[in-house]
């Protein structure tokens, strides 16, 4: 395939890279006064990228750049969700950044560049492109975490994220170099071939352990989750909203693609590792969140727990398991964005409030917000009619079908424990004495996002679950 033809398949990434640079130049010339316009242009750019992904030319599955980059149903599914989540994150930030006098033109550009890194991750089929995708995304995220550079907590969050991220990259690279040493190739297809032929894969598995550690850090799965609560709490709230959605999906997609396409031959060796990470994450998510008073920290532990449930599907290792991970992550991203839209609406005079106690008696002061948040919390907990329940349902069924009944049982128990702290907030909102009311004027973006997300969780996705499962099933099938 010639370069010109190759590039037609990489249109979304090219558009993001070139567009981000053009916006950066525009931002530098127009100054920070134009940051609002740059934000809007970035959102348009991301939506154009969604269009380019959906209406890609030619065959569905194609490998580019000597097997470094693959465009298939899986990457298409992941990229659409990543770009949409990034676009919504930019829209949700505008008002907050303007209020905190952080409205700078680099902010949306960095989110676009992070989205570029994430889409490279979703398409990576080589250890080198895997690492470079991760670094592109992470570097942009480190900067975003400390974007409020005059705040001690924000800079601390950025520094912590950077140092621990560098450590995890080191582990990932060490694992990658061991895998390369034992298989003699960096491409996933080549590794799979060597692993299938070799009699003894001990060296490969040792490398794989380090690789999995590095990837587990990126999805913030226990025991590599320590950074999450501090970074979520310290970073500016819209940045946290972004962190909790798109990067999680991208890292999980990369995790799934790496394990299912490069080392399916040694699944008996990596399945227990992934299963243990899943159990540990669910336990940390369920028990550590109980004692939290800060809602951003609570969401951090909640996301750790959710990664645990998603990893159950990966531990199954089947096509059904992969499709259940995609369903779970899609629902997770949608409800997390909604939950953070609600958190961004918890505004009193003098800024955002972050304590769970501030939500007390919300039904008496702000009924619409209370209803939205109740639906989202029910969905996060996985209570039956909501979409969150179906996500868990598919994951547990994939585990049972792969003879991992014990894992499914632990998952059910953990979700029962975690339901406690979600429902505790619902209790506060409905039956406690009211705290002072929040400001009503929060802008149309947050209201629409929150309503949209809540409507998706119940009843839209409940009704259209079949459509989502079909899309995820097609996407997963392209990996096998």
């Amino acid at each position, binding site marked *: 395939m010639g*370069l010109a033809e190759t590039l037609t398949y990489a249109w979304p990434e090219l558009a993001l*890279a070139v567009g981000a*640079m053009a916006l*950066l130049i525009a931002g530098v010339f127009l100054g920070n006064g134009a940051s609002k316009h740059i934000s809007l242009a970035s959102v348009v750019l991301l939506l154009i990228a969604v269009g380019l992904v959906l209406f890609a030319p030619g065959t569905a599955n194609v490998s*580019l*750049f*000597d097997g*470094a*980059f693959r465009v298939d149903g899986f990457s298409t599914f992941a990229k659409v969700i990543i770009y949409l989540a990034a676009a919504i994150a930019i829209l949700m930030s505008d008002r907050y950044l303007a209020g905190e006098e952080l409205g*700078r033109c*680099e902010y949306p*550009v*960095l989110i676009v*560049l992070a989205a*570029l*890194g994430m889409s*490279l991750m979703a398409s990576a089929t080589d250890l*080198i*492109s895997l690492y*470079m*995708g991760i*670094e*592109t995304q992470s*570097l*942009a995220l*480190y*900067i975003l975490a*400390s*974007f409020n*550079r005059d705040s001690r907590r924000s800079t601390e969050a*950025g520094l912590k994220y950077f140092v621990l991220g560098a450590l995890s990259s080191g582990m990932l690279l060490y694992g990658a170099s061991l895998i390369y040493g034992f298989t003699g190739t960096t491409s996933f297809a080549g590794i799979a071939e060597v692993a299938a032929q070799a009699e003894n894969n001990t060296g490969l598995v040792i490398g794989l352990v380090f690789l999995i550690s590095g990837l587990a850090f990126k999805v913030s799965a226990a025991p590599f989750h320590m950074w999450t609560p501090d970074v979520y709490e310290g970073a500016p709230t819209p940045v946290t909203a972004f962190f909790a959605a798109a990067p999680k999906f991208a890292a999980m997609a990369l995790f799934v693609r790496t394990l299912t396409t490069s080392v399916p031959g040694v699944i008996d060796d990596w399945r227990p590792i992934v299963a243990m990470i899943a159990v540990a994450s669910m336990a940390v998510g369920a028990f550590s969140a109980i004692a939290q008073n800060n809602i951003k920290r609570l969401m951090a532990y909640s996301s750790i727990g959710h990664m645990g449930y998603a990893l159950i599907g990966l531990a199954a290792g089947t096509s059904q398991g992969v499709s259940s991970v995609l369903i779970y992550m899609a629902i997770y991203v949608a409800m997390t964005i909604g939950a953070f839209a609600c958190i961004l609406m918890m505004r009193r005079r003098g800024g955002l409030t972050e304590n769970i106690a501030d939500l007390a008696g919300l039904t008496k002061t702000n009924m619409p917000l209370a209803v939205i948040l109740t639906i989202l919390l029910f969905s996060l907990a996985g209570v039956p009619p909501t979409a969150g329940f179906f996500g868990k349902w598919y994951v547990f069924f994939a585990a049972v079908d792969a003879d991992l009944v014990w894992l499914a049982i632990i998952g059910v128990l953990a979700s029962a424990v975690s339901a406690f702290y979600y429902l505790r907030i619902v209790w506060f909102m409905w039956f406690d004495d009211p705290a002072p009311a929040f400001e009503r004027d929060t802008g149309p973006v947050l209201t629409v996002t929150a309503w949209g997300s809540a409507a998706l969780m119940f009843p839209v996705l409940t009704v259209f679950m079949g459509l989502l499962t079909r899309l995820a099933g097609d996407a997963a099938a392209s990996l096998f």
Partner: protein
Amino acid sequence: MIAAAAFWIFAAAAILSGLMVIASKNPVHSVLFLISAFISAAGLFVLMGAEYLAMLLIVVYVGAVAVLFLFVVMMLDVDFVELKQGFLSYLPIGALIAAVVVVELIMVVFVWAFPSDAELKLAHPAPTAAQTVADPDGPNNIEAIGLILYTDYVHYFQIAGMILLIAMIGAIVLTFRVREGVRTQDPAEQANRAKEIELVDIRPGEGLS
């Protein structure tokens, strides 16, 4: 013969300057010895036929990293008297760790199965004539890298460029501050001051009256 002599000179210089990096009292001298070690290593690379790596070592490590070290060492006021306090109290445990490492090294060396000459030959077959004598008309190091970097590896090359761009944006976003009240020179404005300026031809010895 000359190559062997050059090897011994560079190798000895590398080891000696490496030793001096940790032995010299003055940290500035340490950094200077570090630069000398880098240059010796670059010489060794040239002898191995890796001239591109040698240049990289000079440009990146000597040109950038070592200068940065020098900067940091000179800017930080390191008090060595304070650093050396507690040296004696930590000596026993330090000596213990050192002893353990030495014992481990000895054990490793004694169980090391040195391959016989025949085995060595098997593992590293004698290079063919084409491998030992570089083809004078063929691509050299840099050309060879250039030939694949912009073709087979163009994907990685471009991503690396994006990563560097992000790093640059980050450095500017996190540290750059627009300072108020700074008087900067504006050449265009200066040149346009024609009306306020009067050119006077002053004769020597008379001055401006």
